[in-house]
């Protein structure tokens, strides 16, 4: 069991309002899960809590990752332990070179695992191969992190980082939002390339169309802070047809 979320309650630290009201979820290695839900259901809060962002306060419940207490680890440690979050709105960081940032992140993980760090040359070779797959120009990498990137380029950059960092658990937070059909195809292909028996992927999405390209093993419906229904990929199709209001407590 890679990830086990039990009765997770969480609220925004400054607002005091409870957003997650008892989430239960189990994810094993090799699986691809989709969490779908309407706006305000708690999707982004769930991603933030798992990644370890400040400002979200867990009030009840537990999260076990590879048998360890995830909530006890700071964000950087979770990442070095193989957790990856593809951001919904990747932030621009002027003055921090994209390549330098990625190499530092990559080597932080390698150091943690006792693997040798990559020098600039080795890193560049690894980078070039993956860049092509995601249709990202090398010039983009020479810039500051996400600075001047279009929405689509930012999302592709997230998946490119995932490909370079090779996480064990990848959480994709609304990776499909704002993408046109061509960009969606490229991103989806990138995600599919990273399916592996030792890797789990959780896609958080509002719309069903990403799931046409990245077929999930399990689909969960998140509504009002709880998972109200789970099923296989056909659940997503049904959701699209019937709408969120017919599920869970609202049914």
């Amino acid at each position, binding site marked *: 069991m890679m990830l086990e979320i039990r009765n997770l309650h969480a609220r925004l630290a400054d607002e005091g309002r409870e957003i997650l009201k008892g989430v239960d979820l189990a994810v094993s290695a090799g699986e691809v899960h989709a969490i779908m839900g309407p706006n305000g259901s708690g999707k982004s809060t769930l991603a933030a809590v798992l990644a370890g962002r400040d400002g979200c306060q867990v009030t009840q419940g537990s999260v076990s990752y590879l048998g360890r207490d995830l909530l006890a680890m700071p964000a950087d440690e979770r990442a070095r332990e193989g957790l990856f979050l593809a951001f919904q709105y990747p932030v621009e960081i002027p003055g921090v070179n994209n390549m330098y940032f990625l190499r530092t992140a990559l080597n932080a993980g390698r150091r943690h695992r006792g693997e040798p760090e990559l020098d600039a040359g080795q890193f560049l070779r690894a980078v070039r191969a993956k860049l092509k797959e995601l249709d990202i120009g090398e010039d983009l990498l020479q810039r500051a992190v996400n600075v001047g990137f279009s929405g689509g380029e930012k999302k592709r950059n997230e998946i490119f*980082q995932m490909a370079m960092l090779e996480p064990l658990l990848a959480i994709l937070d609304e990776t499909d939002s704002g993408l046109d059909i061509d960009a969606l195809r490229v991103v989806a292909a990138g995600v599919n390339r990273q399916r592996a028996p030792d890797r789990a992927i959780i896609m958080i999405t509002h719309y069903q169309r990403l799931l046409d390209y990245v077929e999930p093993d399990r689909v969960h419906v998140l509504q009002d802070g709880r998972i109200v229904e789970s099923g296989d990929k056909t659940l997503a199709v049904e959701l699209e047809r019937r709408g969120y209001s017919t599920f869970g407590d609202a049914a």
Partner: protein
Amino acid sequence: MSAVVDFPVRPEARPYLDAACADPGEPDWLASRRRRALARFAEEGFPRRRGEAWRYLDLRALAEAPLPPVSRPAERAVSAERAVSAGAMPPRLAGSALAQRGFRLVLVDGRFSPALSTTADLPDGVRLSSTANAIAGAPDAVGTALDALSDAPDQPFAALNAALFSDGFVLEVAPGIVLEEPIEIVHLASGAAPASLHSRSLVRIGAQSRVRLFESFAGEGRYWRNDVVALRLGPGAGLDRVVLVEEAGAAIHLAATDAELGAAARLGSFVLLLGGRTVRHEIAVHSTGEGARCRLDGAFLATQRQQVNIVTTVHHMAAQGETRESFKGVAVDRAQGAFQGRITVHPGAQKTDAHMLSRNLLLGAHAAIDTKPELEIFADDVKCSHGAAVGDLDEAALFYLTARGIPREEARQMLIAAFLGEALDSVVPAVLREHLSTRLARRLKELEEPA
């Protein structure tokens, strides 16, 4: 020099009065100027913190523990040579200077060091010498250097500098000369004994000439560096001056630059303040010629208990002038940083185009940043603006970096480096930009996470 004067001497000035000692070898005109300057300092004393100009600097430590200059010329020469082995700078201090040695003048403990300098083979029309050597050979230049700040209010230390200066550098460039390779001035303090070092210098650039200057300040031990530089740019002249301050942790560094720009002259100035316990870097620019332009940029990183001040005053006296100022500051731990910038557009200085920006990061509950931009506008057809900001690191950026596995401490340093590094983008040429970048990176490594 007699300590008997006919006016009351401020108590903190007395030790300097007593230590001042006439050099029998100096011409009368210079001795007379020194006496007048000393009297002025004695009467004025240290600057008042109540006044605006020096409000953000705490000089009590200096007032309580005076640092008189090494008094006799012979003593100065001996201490300098003993502290520095011929031909090589102390390894700990050598890093501040450029790795590639070009035209270089080195001052050790305020005195020219021929052994460490390379001033031969300068192109025709470019003269670089020590101020002490110029007293006999180019007295007019020394006189011009001493004129700087002599009438300015709130400049008692410039007066003391005029009275006690031991040496400095004089760079004179004839008209019509373009020299791309930076001329380097290295100011070292050996730390042989606690003392004050007073250096007075002049850069005079003839019409249409262009020169680059790189000055670094480094040292060991406890000392007070009191440096005054006069910049005089003729019509159409250009000067790019980069200053790197990496003084010792217990040092006081008070530096003042006084610049006069002729018509269509262009001054580019960049200062990077990384070291020294108490640092104040002041630049005064008088744009007296029409169409004169200046660009004043810089950055400071203040940590532990450092106090770092940047003070700029620009006077637009003539029309069509242009000023761009952009300064970045970072204060962590218990450090205090301050930026004071004033641009004055005098009557008649129409079509002046002046903009000033001060951006700062305040990273620590006990750190402090003061930023005070000012515009005084007495002409009615101008474009002027100023902006100031003090903030923390971008939380979203910090989370992005840590969420990729970069340890929080390292992520903070990356963002601080990015913030300050951007300031370096304006430094030319690339060799100087890279050098500053390397020194900044080295200084950033010393940072510890604030409590």
